[in-house]
């Protein structure tokens, strides 16, 4: 072998590294959120629909819930809206919205026009709560189990495929039947990241 082949050999080696990096890139994006397996960050936010009744992290306890971070300024949120409405119709898990860095009037208009998939919506005007949740950009969706532990996080638009593939199995695995808000589920956080 002559020395002129060495650069090519080095390049092949580099390719292997890049290929492995690329294979792992999706995990990096759908980041192993440090929150997974941990209790949800404490928060209290103004309620979009009823300013006298703030939305707090306590509201996530006692039942499965889907926390969806969105904003009317977000193009992808428009794209995922139909999927959220559909999930709501199945009524398996209540959707709690966190309206991120948005104006209340815009948000109310948006929900009036496109339909409201949310059980409750907290308005995070300053984006402080989103920081605690480690939100990079909207939309992001979190699956919370009845003990208030973050089980799964999805970055980007929610689709019915993602819901069927990633979220639903985690919910069904522990309880095996639909859960409505207010029905205390006895199963603890068995569907953590290790599951």
């Amino acid at each position, binding site marked *: 072998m*002559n*020395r*002129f*082949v060495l*650069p*090519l050999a080095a*390049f*092949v080696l*580099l*390719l*292997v*590294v*890049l*290929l*492995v*990096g*690329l294979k*792992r*890139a*999706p995990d*990096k*994006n759908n980041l192993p959120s440090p929150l997974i397996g941990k209790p949800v960050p404490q928060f209290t936010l103004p309620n979009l629909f009823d300013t006298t009744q703030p939305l707090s992290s306590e509201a996530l306890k006692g039942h499965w819930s889907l926390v969806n971070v969105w*904003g009317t*300024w*977000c*193009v992808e949120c*428009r794209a995922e809206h139909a999927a959220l409405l559909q999930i709501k119709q199945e009524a398996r898990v209540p959707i709690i919205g966190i309206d*991120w*860095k*948005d104006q209340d009037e815009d948000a109310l208009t948006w929900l009036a026009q496109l339909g409201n998939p949310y059980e409750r919506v907290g308005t995070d*005007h300053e*984006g402080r709560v989103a920081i605690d949740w480690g939100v990079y950009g909207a939309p992001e969706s979190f699956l919370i189990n009845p003990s208030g532990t973050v089980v799964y996080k999805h970055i980007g638009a929610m689709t019915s495929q993602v819901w069927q593939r990633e979220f639903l199995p985690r919910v069904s695995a522990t309880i095996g039947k639909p859960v409505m808000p207010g029905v205390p589920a006895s199963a603890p956080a068995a569907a953590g990241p290790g599951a």
Partner: protein
Amino acid sequence: MVVELGHYALILALMLAAAQAFFGLAGPALKRERWLAVVPSAACGQFVFVALAVGVLVHAFVNNDFSVRYVAETSNSVLPLFYRVTALWGAHEGSMLLWILVLSLWTMALVANMRHLPPSFAARALGVLGIISCCFLLFTLATSNPFVRLIPAAPDGNDLNPVLQDPAFAVHPPILYMGYVGFSVSFALACAAMIEGRRDQLWAHWMRPWTVMAWAFLACGIALGSWWAYYELGWGGFWFWDPVENASFMPWLVGTALIHSLAVTDKRGLFKSWTLLLAVTAFSLSLLGTFLVRSGVLVSVHSFAADPSRGIFILVLLVLMIGGALGLYAWRAPLMKSAAGFDFLSRESFLLFNNILLTIAAAVVFGGTLAPLIADTLGLGTLSVGPPYFNPSFLVPILPMLSLVALGMHARWRRGRLGEARRPLLLALGVSLVLALALSLGVYGHPFKLTPVGATVGFWIILSALIDPVDRLRRRLSLPASVAGMSIAHIGLGIFVLGITFVQSNTIERDIALKPGESAPVGAYRFRYDGGQDIVGPNYEGFRGKVSITRNGEPVSVLYPEKRRYWVQGTVQTTAAIAPAFNRDLLAALGEDVGAGAWSLRLQYRPLIRFVWVGALIMAIGGVTAVVGRRQRGLVASGVALPLATTAPGGIREQGGAP
């Protein structure tokens, strides 16, 4: 409808790029004279259609056409017109289009100058450029089409990232791309030389001006980016060793090595295969940078919306382009024997050291950039590599390299004697030592041991770069553009070294909370916070503080740092206020409102920071001077008139090109 025309124009450009590639490479191979004539026309046509596509996208931005997904994602109707135009390269899809536009601009430049080259050689080089263009057009159309519609159309757009709403953003990406896409011409010429199996070194002569121009653009682009980060990000730093910064810095380092190695190949016929390898590597690193930024394999502040499916596509293209070129190299480079020798302390040796050390420096950056990826591959867990690795490791090859610059400039070709340059060089070294000690101990005063060393090296480079021009002026000789260019570039390097040395050693930073009327000392200066007021801009609202600076009771400057909240994305943006001067910058940035009228403030004093960017700019000016001067003297016109040094006499200590 107009938008679909843009999409269509891009498809036509792809067809023409394919024609350019096919006829450019097949024509000379099959000896079809008439096929050669097609190549420049295809290149021109491609440029026209790419420009048309860009024009269409600009039109969509200017008219707020939010039915175009890309426009809806990166623009907004309240965005000022100027930023609506620059939003074109505000995200991945549009910046790919810019990449392609810049590539076709360089292709046009080659077409305009191809009469100086043998027709078949020029056709091959254009053919290689055609392949590159094909790859990127295909990639853009298949995975990153900026013309995709959004149905139903968004009522308004998502706005341009506030960090990008800055005049520097109008020029930084285009100039940076001019730089690293510019290395595609050197790459294409190297490939053409290898395909032809040329045994002479004329290709090196042809390649020199292209390389220097690309290198100069890249220097400007990097400096602009660094300056922009400095004032816009409000952190006061100018270089963060971020993967994306490194992606532009590595081709620049290799490009610097290439310029010097080209000089040896052109003048003396040595280092041929090494020079070819550098030409291939410089552009390969640009391509690799593109991959790293856009595939999401590395995490960076600059990252574009990452999409692994794009990553695999670019990876395939990398295999095609880089793998192809390196395969060609493995096959053809053994033909390129260099049969001349040189003494140990000749200019060739110094340029060899320059090359080795710059390559090591590039390797250090490369290693640090890819370390997280490699650690991940080997299952060593997550690793993050930052300035604590880069700063010292980079100095190891760079400090010796810089110390040799003064000697290398004055060493003779072939012979290992400094001759008459020895006395002025030693004198310059002595003067530099005195200046450096005076400055580092007297004016700035700091315990770092490396400060006087860095300062001495900086001064020595500047002074020794002046020896030749001063000598020529004294003897009333003309100053050839190549000598002037080299001197200017090295003076720029010296200024840059001085800047870095003192900024790194003598910066003072304070983070402190101040109430209106309170003040804090920063070095010899006193910063007083005078309160502030709420402000409203075209698409943001915010708070503007007032900071008065005095020195020994004398007013120096008043700064107005801002904190802005952009309405559409709700992003909070800190805009630092800077009082610049020749010898120092004073900076104030607003932190948080800590209540009771008090704000946390970041206050900084940075000596000689302007030298860093001015030095880079002067280096680029030096490069351009050399190229423009060479053109005017018509040397570029025909390499045929050049003395061929392939059989130069001298020692026979060195055989073969690659060190």
